[in-house]
């Protein structure tokens, strides 16, 4: 594998995404963890761009790194509790941690083995050319409204239910209802 720009970008941003993802898990302060997660989403957005998914990459930054993470940071600041730093180091917890990590390693191994054993058929070079405008807003819009109209309607229903649920849940209890 030579040092062409695509390879360099892939290596750079895959490393960045893994490091920032580890940051989310390892960093104690939730706010710093949220910043690390934003960095991870930006790296993943670059990886989407490398795969010719321009609109998805833009949406990843707008929706995830923008809207969702702003919500997270808001709630972290609302919920920030001072006495959260109590470290309980019981025997059960000390036993549970390695067991959890072994479980995760087993899951990762089964996925990896599955990928290793699966032959991903490579189309010949003529067929590997992506269709014109692949990943553009127009292509996704056509696909959405030609073949996935029902999914689109269900998504709008889901978002409506989500909005109503969030409003009802965050109302103060006792007043009205």
């Amino acid at each position: 594998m030579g040092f062409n720009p695509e390879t360099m970008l892939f290596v750079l941003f895959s490393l960045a995404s893994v490091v920032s993802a580890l940051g989310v898990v390892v960093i104690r302060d939730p706010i710093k963890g949220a910043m690390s997660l934003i960095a991870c989403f930006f790296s993943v957005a670059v990886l989407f761009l490398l795969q010719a998914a321009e609109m998805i990459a833009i949406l990843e930054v707008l929706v995830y790194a923008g809207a969702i993470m702003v919500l997270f940071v808001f709630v972290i600041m609302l919920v920030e509790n001072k006495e959260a730093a109590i470290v309980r180091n019981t025997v059960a917890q000390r036993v549970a941690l390695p067991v959890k990590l072994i479980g995760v390693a087993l899951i990762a191994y089964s996925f990896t083995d599955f990928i290793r054993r699966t032959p991903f058929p490579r189309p010949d070079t003529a067929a590997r050319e992506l269709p014109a405008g692949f990943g553009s807003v127009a292509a996704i819009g056509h696909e959405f409204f030609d073949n996935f109209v029902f999914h689109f309607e269900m998504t709008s229903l889901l978002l409506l239910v989500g909005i109503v649920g969030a409003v009802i849940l965050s109302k103060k209890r006792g007043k009205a209802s």
Partner: protein
Amino acid sequence: MIDPNIPIEHYLYLSVILFSIGTAGVLVRRNAIVVFMCIELMLAAGNLTLVTFARHHGDTAGHIYVLLVMAVAAAEVAVGLAIMIQVFRIRRTVDVDDLREMRG
């Protein structure tokens, strides 16, 4: 168009790594908000897989599924964080080890 010269397996392995990190975070961390962020990380890893296969097959349907996942994630975060604020109002904590009413 960018010449696809990175094998599809590389993206899939990266996706596995991100997903496993997210799973480890969900299991290990005790702050419920951090657990939520790790779930978002797992969803992003799934999205990466969908985009990878979409390009491998030259099929836009994978991008549609990513959009659907994003909508589900947004709804989930809105409702989940509202629940968390409500729990915090009542219990003054979001530590998943302290919230054990539903544990038998």
